[in-house]
């Protein structure tokens, strides 16, 4: 956080700073760096850090890190910016988010970034497309947060410092992080409850940010989880808090990144399901789980869940290891099927989603991102 003297220097108008107007994703990255969610990063990546992440999946000091956090600018913008300059990073309304001390201005092959992060250069992959659309120049250097952008969901937003104190006050020693970008169906709830049988608490941490067309709207994800926790969990065993960041759809690399962020929040364990952070059929459904084998030093324990289903014969949720019955007795937790039911204005099957959750989704005339 910015010192009082630095704050005065910025707002007194006596010092001239370059101004960089950035899109929301970059401002959120800056806030996440400052809050310690991206710890140990203290700024936007320099070139050697980017190369190390792409080639080794680690920072130059060997710390696991898999997803680049970049600040890109156009050639035109870069013309007046020199290494050693200080820049104010602002939103389009000139609200200052951060002070960036530019250590490096560099170019990097965007195709190489895309291919190494996403394992493909197919422009149909949303992460590849976004990477190829980045501007051509990158700025690396430490940042100080000046003022975090306010969001509608601040009531659900906790920093790592806050969650660590919260977990300690609750007396939790083992905390399982649960990442989500959907309203809860009964399969999610089963995973959370299963994890809770081993841990002291569950940290439900929905990802709020830019999503794909057709995803459920953020406010509905929050409202439905809030309801679930209030009515169906022990209050002292579950915490709901948002994480403002974009899905990159980088599959295995992003699963590691998600785990690192939850470690920073104070989680000791992190749930990895089937096709974590995947999109389409770009990744093997268990590739994300496999990548954890390469990181014995992650500092957070992954809890792997395979696919599961409701079995009519078992009379509950089961998986291939626990259920002896044939597929004809199984109802799959299909996000597509749930979406289709909601789109039609119908409640999904009672084996898939609680009526109380479905009601929240159905009450919204347009529950999906357009």
């Amino acid at each position, binding site marked *: 956080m910015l010192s009082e003297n630095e704050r005065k220097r910025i707002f007194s108008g006596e010092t001239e700073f370059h101004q960089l107007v950035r899109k929301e994703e970059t401002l959120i990255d800056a806030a996440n760096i400052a809050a310690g969610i991206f710890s140990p990063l203290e700024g936007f990546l*320099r*070139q*050697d*850090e*980017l*190369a*190390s992440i792409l*080639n080794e999946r680690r920072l*130059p000091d*060997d710390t696991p890190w898999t997803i680049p956090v970049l600040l890109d600018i156009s050639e035109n913008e870069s013309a007046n910016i020199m290494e050693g300059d200080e820049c104010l990073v602002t939103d389009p309304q000139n609200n200052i988010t951060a002070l960036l001390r530019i250590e490096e201005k560099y170019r990097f092959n965007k195709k190489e970034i895309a291919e190494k992060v996403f394992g493909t250069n197919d422009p149909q992959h949303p992460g590849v497309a976004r990477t190829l659309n980045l501007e051509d120049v990158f700025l690396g250097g430490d940042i100080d947060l000046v003022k975090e952008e306010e969001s509608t969901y601040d*009531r659900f937003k*906790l920093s790592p*410092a*806050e969650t*660590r*104190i*919260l977990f*300690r*006050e609750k007396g939790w020693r083992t905390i399982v992080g649960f990442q989500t970008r959907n309203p809860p169906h009964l399969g999610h709830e089963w995973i959370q409850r299963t994890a809770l049988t081993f841990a002291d608490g569950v940290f439900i941490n929905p990802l709020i940010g830019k999503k794909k067309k057709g995803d459920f709207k953020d406010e509905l994800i929050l409202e439905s989880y809030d309801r679930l926790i209030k009515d169906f969990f022990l209050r002292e065993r579950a*915490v709901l808090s948002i994480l403002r960041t974009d899905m990159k759809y980088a599959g295995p690399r992003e699963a590691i990144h998600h785990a690192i962020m939850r*470690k920073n929040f104070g989680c*000791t364990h992190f749930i990895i399901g089937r096709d974590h952070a995947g999109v389409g059929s770009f990744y093997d459904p268990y590739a994300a789980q496999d990548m954890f*084998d*390469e*990181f*014995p*030093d*992650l*500092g957070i324990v992954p809890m792997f869940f395979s696919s599961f289903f409701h079995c009519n014969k078992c009379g509950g949720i089961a998986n291939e290891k626990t259920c002896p019955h044939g597929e004809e007795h199984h109802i799959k937790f299909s996000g597509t099927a749930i979406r289709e039911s909601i789109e039609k204005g119908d409640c999904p099957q009672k084996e898939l989603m609680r009526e109380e959750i479905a009601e929240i989704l159905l009450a919204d005339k347009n529950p999906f991102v357009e």
Partner: protein
Amino acid sequence: MKKGEEKKFTTVSIPTPLFQKIQDRIKGTGFTSVSSYVAYVLREVITEEPDEEQPFSKEDEERIKDRLRALGYLD
């Protein structure tokens, strides 16, 4: 090779019989060399314990607890 792409490796000596044992052990595993196995084991061993609680001042801690109470996270 671009800046930052150079590999930063160094040499560590281990007894030859141990090297041979590791060579046998990694056959048929995902490890492609004794070096990659040794690096894996060392990373596992030196993984730091979960970070110690950040040293918060009393004021900071109270401020955070007040916010947590106001938001309904703490009683």
